[in-house]
């Protein structure tokens, strides 16, 4: 088991990435593949990290949340490491509908260079649709 801040190193680890599905703005409507923009970190919000869930600790439905608003894709640690990124275990607590929720699966992908557009494109192209 990992502690918060540990690098995830199981070679067969798989991560879920929740993607907004509204009007398929992040999805190539012809192929169903997400665009690179769906895997682009937000420097102003997440400090250049990409939020994901470790699939061994959460169900796809729980990771996706609202199925009407979001869709779910997976990426492997093998792909993440192959482009010199790292996955860090980062369980979080947050308030939703006045209830404290703990997401023990939350992790983030880090190592993005703001000027490097290739990594988001590679993650998108290697991702698989789950939900």
């Amino acid at each position, binding site marked *: 088991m990992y502690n918060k801040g540990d690098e995830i190193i199981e070679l067969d680890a798989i991560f879920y990435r929740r993607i*907004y599905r509204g009007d398929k703005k992040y999805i190539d409507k012809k192929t169903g593949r997400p*665009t690179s*923009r769906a895997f682009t970190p*937000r420097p*102003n*919000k997440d400090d250049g990290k990409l939020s994901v869930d470790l699939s061994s600790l959460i169900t796809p439905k729980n990771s996706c949340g609202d199925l009407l608003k979001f869709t779910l894709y997976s990426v492997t640690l093998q792909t993440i490491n192959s*482009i010199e990124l790292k996955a860090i275990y980062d369980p979080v607590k947050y308030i939703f509908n006045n209830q404290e929720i703990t997401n023990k699966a939350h992790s983030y992908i880090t190592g993005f260079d703001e000027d*490097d*557009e290739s990594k988001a494109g590679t993650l998108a*192209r290697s991702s698989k649709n789950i939900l």
Partner: protein
Amino acid sequence: MTVLSKVASFRIQDTNIIDNYSTTTNNSLFENPSYSVGLLIEPFDSAISITSVNSISIENQETINTIKSFKSLDNNWDEDGAQAISLFSIYKSIEIVKMLDRLNIDVYLAAPGPNKEILLMVKTSSKELELIIYPNKMKFVKFENNEFISQGDFSIEEIPSLYFWTQSV
């Protein structure tokens, strides 16, 4: 009377091609979203012969309409903190689509990004060229068979050579 020294290409807004043709520069073409008719004007003494050329393709017009629709995306449009798309990104993307159209290239996809940017993609069976237009920079990324090839900054003038890469064997 001044005559044209060689065949020149013009675009006009009105379909009354004899009375309303006008000369214009490439830059003003990009700023005018409503042009719809193309002309070739060939001087012969004092006579002018006019031939229609294709207007903007249906695919690229749809792409332009998609890009224009990004104006309605407010902050947090993806319910995950995405920022509103910048007007500069919108206008520049439309300019690029029109330039590609003049090269007879259909843009495969236009998509908004979380950091005010717009993604334009040109695609062949094995090659994909991503053009990413931010408010303060423009980046290209090349992929072949889903493998990353190269990336960098680009300017409008470099678009034809970037496109030619997608056509190379």
